[in-house]
């Protein structure tokens, strides 16, 4: 049987999926009574037209790179980690504990320790569902959903009853010390002569996210463990026959996935809020699902998809400010992207398959 060439499968199909999603979004904007073309140009100038806009776009993109990579790594082992939201939130707890417990004198060691703390806490939050899946076959999707809620309750308890400074009404930790404040893109780019807006929250953890992309790529495609992970994801029975232990693969894929989701906290908790607040993740864990699906679980694809969603987030905020289109438009776009690049992927593929077969028959 002729199959579609790989580039169609990995590039064209997700692009068509995104295009369909955007067309639907345009129709929705029309129905609200706004002009979709005007809306798009407002989004582009708002998100990409100034370094101020870029400062936000890249900040959001950083979050989505981490959570997108988290979902991707698990996807390669055919694990669907819906718990990125909870793992990122608990990762924030790790960052807060690191920043508040030690007397840091410079941001660099603080950032390294916080990254480690975030990764360990995120991984721990993924470890229990992973263990239950590996040992008892409890469905990872259900347990990670449950752990999102359990994590939210735990953080709620800690912030209200334990970590809140006395006298404060706000359920949040105290401000992290000045010395743990991360350099913003403005601080990084100024010495090399690029003037970048001071206002945007994008910071050095964007670079960590880029490094994470490279490391995930090396891990998945150039290590023995990554190979085993992919082998298990393709065929559990074949992997078992080759002596790959399912329990080990489930644990490793989920621990790495949780660690990556947790590391998002270096950006939103340490880089932006500089304290741990309630609901600090703002749904970024779930956007990771859309990003991973659209990016075909490849770090380069994840990077591009995260940038697109960063743009949509910042552009959506601009829309909400200047038009009658509410911010929730982004949630709809996100849902449509998940639908057309994920669940309804076969619907997009079927006509392409047909065209491909037809053209093959025509030439031979």
């Amino acid at each position, binding site marked *: 049987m002729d199959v579609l060439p790989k580039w169609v499968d990995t590039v064209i199909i997700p692009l068509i999926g995104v295009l369909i999603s955007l067309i639907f979004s345009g129709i929705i904007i029309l129905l609200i009574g706004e002009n979709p073309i005007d809306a798009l140009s407002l989004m582009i100038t708002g998100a990409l037209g100034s370094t101020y806009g870029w400062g936000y776009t890249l900040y959001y993109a950083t979050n989505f790179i981490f959570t997108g990579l988290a979902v991707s790594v698990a996807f390669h082992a055919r694990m669907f980690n819906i718990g990125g939201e909870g793992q990122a939130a608990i990762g924030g707890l790790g960052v807060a504990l690191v920043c508040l417990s030690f007397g840091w004198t410079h941001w660099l060691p603080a950032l390294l320790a916080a990254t480690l703390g975030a990764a360990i806490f995120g991984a721990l939050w993924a470890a229990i569902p992973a263990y239950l899946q590996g040992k008892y076959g409890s469905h990872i999707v259900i347990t990670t959903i449950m*752990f999102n809620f359990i994590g939210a309750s735990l953080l709620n308890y800690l912030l209200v009853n334990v970590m809140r400074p006395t006298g404060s009404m706000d359920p949040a930790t105290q401000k992290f010390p000045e010395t743990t404040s991360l350099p913003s893109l403005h601080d990084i780019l100024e010495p090399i002569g690029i003037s970048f807006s001071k206002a945007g929250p994008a910071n050095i953890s964007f670079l960590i996210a880029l490094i994470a992309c490279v490391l995930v790529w090396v891990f998945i495609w150039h290590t023995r463990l990554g190979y085993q992970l992919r082998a298990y994801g393709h065929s559990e029975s074949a992997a078992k026959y080759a002596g790959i232990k399912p329990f080990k693969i489930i644990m490793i894929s989920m621990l790495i996935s949780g660690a990556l989701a947790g590391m998002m906290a270096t950006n939103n908790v340490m880089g932006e809020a500089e304290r741990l607040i309630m609901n600090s993740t703002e749904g970024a864990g779930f956007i990771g*699902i859309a990003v991973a699906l659209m990016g075909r679980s490849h770090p380069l694809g994840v990077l591009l998809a995260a940038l697109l969603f960063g743009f949509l987030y910042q552009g959506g905020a601009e829309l909400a400010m200047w038009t009658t289109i509410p911010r929730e438009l982004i949630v709809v776009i996100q849902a449509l992207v998940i639908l057309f690049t994920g669940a309804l992927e076969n619907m997009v593929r079927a006509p392409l398959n047909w065209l491909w077969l037809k053209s093959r028959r025509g030439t031979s």
Partner: protein
Amino acid sequence: MDFMVLIQVLDSTIRLAVPLLLCSLAGLFSERAGIFDIGLEGKLLAAAFFSAAAAALAMDPNSYISLGSLKFDTNKYVVWAGKYAVWIGLFFGILASLLFSLLHGLASITFRGNQLISGVAINFLAAGITVLIGQSVFRLGGRTPSLSGDARFKEINFPFAEKVSEVPIMGPIYSELLSGHTILAYLAMLLVPLSWYVLYRTRFGLRLRAVGENPAAVDTAGISVIKLRYMSIIICGLLCGLAGAYLSTGLAAGFVKDMSGGRGFIALAALIFAKWRPWHILTATLLFGLLEAISNRFQNIDIFGLILPIQFMQALPYLLTVVILAGFVGKAIPPLAGGVPYTKE
């Protein structure tokens, strides 16, 4: 604890258990036929919104919509719609939920996509679209106007409920606990034995369960797997629609943004906790309803000097489900063919 406090807590337990029960039964039909449904939350939210929105518009159409030259100034229509506002709401709530269900069916049955991913998409679609439409129709920041009168389900009082309320013990149980719920609450309770009967005592139920365990065998017997699965999904949508309408036009007086607040997921947890069996679903949803009622009424619970924080009570349904899933208390085994698209050989 005061007896009357106990009655009040149990009364709100029933109120809070009803949407969970309806949603959980919805999930039961879908998952027993082999279609995983983590989109219960989205369908619940969509139904809640469209019920409240349709009921509000039926009460007062002219103040919200002017469809160009079309004018709804025929008084007859307005009076008629106002009188049956809550039922119009129910109709549109169920319709919305059904459409989401069919989308799930299209993705997971017809196009054999990933059922979990489709569920995630449905949850987000509902979360976004409800606010988007709500804001552009009502301009209240995603809320619908608050509903009253004929736009809400009325409490049904049992005969003599007033009179016997003075009788000790049995009086309050009859007049406070059992009487005074909406018709949807009583319907939900009736649906438990009905679901059991349909699933275990009818040919349709047998086939539905078979299609969730071994679709190939059902197909070999000459019965359409696709048709059966679509029927299960339609039942699921219908029940989620009832749950949503109850939420916004029975329990509350109108829709607010994200009002389902994770109830769809708690219903999913109850379904697993009950190991996919109707009577156990009733027990599980009542238990989870009780937990919610307790955490609504008391801030912290003191058990023999051990103080349980409110957040613990909120997390308890999820914790219990994880414990059940782990197989510490009997094993929860989902339908064998659950989550696997069926491909004819």
